[in-house]
């Protein structure tokens, strides 16, 4: 076995055995996806909270709700977040009102159901990709560990053919194998941090949406 003078990162990856290399590739792809989702979530959650703030500001500014609704429904972009909840609730309320001769409780019940449905859709969008990040965070260290164990097994198997075992015969194999664990941890740590952060952000947003729903329901009830 050649004494490994060259222990650069490239030689470590290229010198690893095939299963270890496959593990490395899987982990690299996983890491790329998890980072992609992390950035997507960063942007979407930031946008959602910004939109919620903007909508709350315009909603509580005391303007006409009909005007607000027209502005949203004629807008080019499909309304998101709090705006879409408002849109769904207000549309349902107006429809019931136009039909007339309906009980107040029925109107409010229908409006609430429409808003609840919109809220669930929004929450589903906010929660998107979080399960993926959670599984990357918990599984990729194990995948990396599998690659490492496999590589170390090979390194020690190679040692059995040698009469005088030295550290330099095992060291390259172990170093190659440990790269797999390093990549696994690199994929897992940001995923776990991001998951926890996004979960709390989504919770806060959902609480915000729910409280808006309650308040809007009260406002509509007063208008009947």
């Amino acid at each position: 076995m050649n004494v490994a003078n060259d222990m650069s990162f490239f030689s470590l990856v290229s010198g690893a055995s095939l299963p270890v290399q496959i593990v490395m590739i899987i982990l690299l792809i996983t890491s790329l996806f998890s980072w992609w989702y992390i950035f997507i979530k960063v942007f979407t959650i930031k946008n959602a909270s910004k939109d919620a703030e903007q909508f709350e500001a315009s909603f509580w500014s005391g303007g006409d709700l009909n005007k607000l609704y027209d502005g949203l429904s004629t807008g080019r972009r499909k309304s998101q977040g709090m705006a879409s909840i408002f849109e769904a609730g207000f549309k349902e309320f107006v429809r019931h009102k136009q039909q007339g001769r309906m009980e107040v409780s029925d109107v409010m019940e229908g409006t609430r159901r429409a808003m609840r449905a919109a809220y669930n859709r929004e929450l589903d969008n906010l929660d998107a990709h979080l399960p993926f990040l959670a599984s990357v965070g918990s599984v990729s260290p194990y995948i990396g560990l599998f690659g490492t164990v496999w590589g170390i097994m090979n390194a020690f198997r190679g040692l059995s053919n040698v009469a005088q075992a030295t550290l330099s015969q095992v060291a390259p194999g172990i170093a190659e194998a440990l790269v797999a664990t390093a990549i696994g941890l690199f994929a897992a740590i940001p995923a776990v941090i991001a998951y926890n952060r996004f979960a709390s952000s989504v919770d806060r947003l959902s609480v915000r949406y729910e409280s808006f729903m309650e308040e809007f329901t009260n406002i509509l009830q007063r208008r009947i």
Partner: protein
Amino acid sequence: MIRKHESDVSWKAGLLAFAVHGVLFVAMVLSINWKAAHPPMNITEVELWEQLPNKSVPKPVEIKEPPKPIVQEVPKPEPKPEPKPEPVQEKPEPQPPKVDIELEQKKKAAEQKKLLEEKKEEKKKAEIEKLKKEMREEELRQEKTAEQAEQKKLKDLQALMRDDKPSAAQQASSVSPSVIGEYTEKIKAKIRGNVNKTLCGDGNPELRFDIGVLPTGELSGTPKLVKSSGNATCDEAVERAIIASEPFPLPEDTAAKAQFRNLKLKFKPNGE
């Protein structure tokens, strides 16, 4: 995979994800310079000898007790030179008396002869004594030179033990048996290191192999078993060890290397 509302940011996010990996990769390759963790290795080759080569063993003994060999060597050379001069001087002795006896049978002649004989005997004794003295002196000189030569050799060998190459070249100029013995011992030691001794049992069987070592240190053919140890697995183990021991250690000198072309190896796997 991607929700509708996310399609706006997906490209941006993808690029950022690649950027993060690129940064990390560059940091790993550059800042963690794993080559620097390996200082240039000084490879030193160490040959482990279980026993010292034949020549080096007796000589230290001679250093410690120099008078003994002198005492032993003195009686040995004496008888050898003595017989040579004696017959040369004895031959003239009988001739003159014969001539005397043939020419005259008188008492005068006998007396003269006796006188002559006495004189000659005296001369002869003196000559013998002189010769003996000379012989002794010569012997002493020879002893001294021999001692000096031996000490020189010893110094050479000690130097050789210290650093192989220069003195090895000097010594091998005349292919001395000491060099061959030394390297045969080295070869044996190397083979012994490769033998799986458990296959040869507890006893100490002796094997004989005919092997041919090329000047490059490689085997010229398969080793030929001349005398078996009586245990086939042991024979095979030793044969494998011989093949595994390539290249064999050889002296620098080409003439000395030629001596190893047909090497008759007596080998004991468990040591001498």
